[in-house]
């Protein structure tokens, strides 16, 4: 991906007196993955976890919280749009429904 497209316009770190930004992930119950809940500002990781607890789990929404510095997230190029994910198209043989001979046969 081109660096020009990936510049964030948010100030992070020493360039501003603002606390850095963190992304918050919450596991709603045992057996489920952590899911992105939102973001918050905090001076360090410990405070970010505490703030995340207060902000995103006031009503038993979580059993575990992750915080990740926002700038540590690397994402696919937004300009790639569909093309980047199209490789799976036309490969219907990746899906069980492609195989029809076994219709009517149980437990298959």
């Amino acid at each position, binding site marked *: 991906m081109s660096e020009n497209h990936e*510049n*964030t316009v948010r100030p992070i770190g020493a*360039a*501003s007196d603002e606390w850095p930004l963190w992304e918050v992930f919450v596991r709603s119950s045992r057996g489920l993955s952590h899911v992105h809940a939102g973001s918050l*500002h905090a001076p360090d990781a410990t405070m970010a976890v505490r703030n995340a607890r207060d902000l995103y789990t*006031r009503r038993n929404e979580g059993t575990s919280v992750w915080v990740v510095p926002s*700038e*540590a*997230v690397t994402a696919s190029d937004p300009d790639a749009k569909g093309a980047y994910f199209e490789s799976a198209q036309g490969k219907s043989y990746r899906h069980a429904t492609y195989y029809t001979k076994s219709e009517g046969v149980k437990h298959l």
Partner: protein
Amino acid sequence: MTTQNSGLHAVAAAEPAEQAELDRAGQEHFDRIIAEDSRIEPRDWMPAAYRRTLVRQISQHAHSEIIGMQPEGNWISRAPSLKRKAILMAKVQDEAGHGLYLYSAAETLGTPRSELNQQLLDGRAKYSSIFNYPARTWADMGAIGWLVDGAAIANQVPLCRASYGPYGRAMVRICKEESFHQRQGWEILHELSHGTPAQKQMAQDAVNRFYGPSLQMFGPPDDDSPNSKQSMAWNIKRFSNDELRQRFVDMIVEQAAALDLTLPDPDLKWNEERGHYDYGPLDWDEFKAVVGGRGPCNLQRMQRRRQAHEDGAWVREAAAAYARRTAPERAPAELIGA
């Protein structure tokens, strides 16, 4: 600006040479997403006016939540029981939380939190005019919960489907929590209206004072709301101000009857033909005065906000200093503090 690889947030412009082509393709993609009633996400191309409108709307909404803590915060120490204090504290904490959800949604559009905060402190940003009315009695906590939060819910439920993803997601969280706010307010009024005659009168007074301003929370009438049309075309707004106001009036008439209280509007009556309640004219001159800074509490609310910000400066500085000092033991903090 240094190169950042943040995958979740707004992106800056490309080289000028590529810009025209990117804008054309971007607009096409944007139009298709809106036509499909799908969602725009932070790193998608979007028209500058769409971005501006959203930053203004979402941050004003966030400011309203933050200022909205004041009328109720003032009553925590005077709430009539330990239970009511606990409930009110939870509610005020929710308002703070709602403000923070919304600020983080606004930030994904590329305006930093510090800038949004500064706009509020400088008086450059607006917030909902309802919070410039005083909360005079305990019954006002009931009227605010029932009518003000009720109007907010009527406004906000359709915003859960707003075309901008982070805004809609913030609204989903907020709406879940608002229903507790509205019910606890209704219950405060119910207890008062079934108490002594003086308590019932206090409840009626509170409803009388908050009825008009809560109907004005939906904004000016449709023929005097120039931005509504564009917001609806962008699928940010789903219903017009007057549609939402009508929906709210239709709901609260029965709720008022269940409280055994009246709504202070002599023109309020069922219109068989329309299938809705008719209601009387609202005082839009007053609305404009309060929005323009001349409401009963505008000055007090702003002073209090600035004072709270200044009083908290040492906490912010201490936390930042501590984070710097302990950074070597905390790899993530060191990374982002660099």
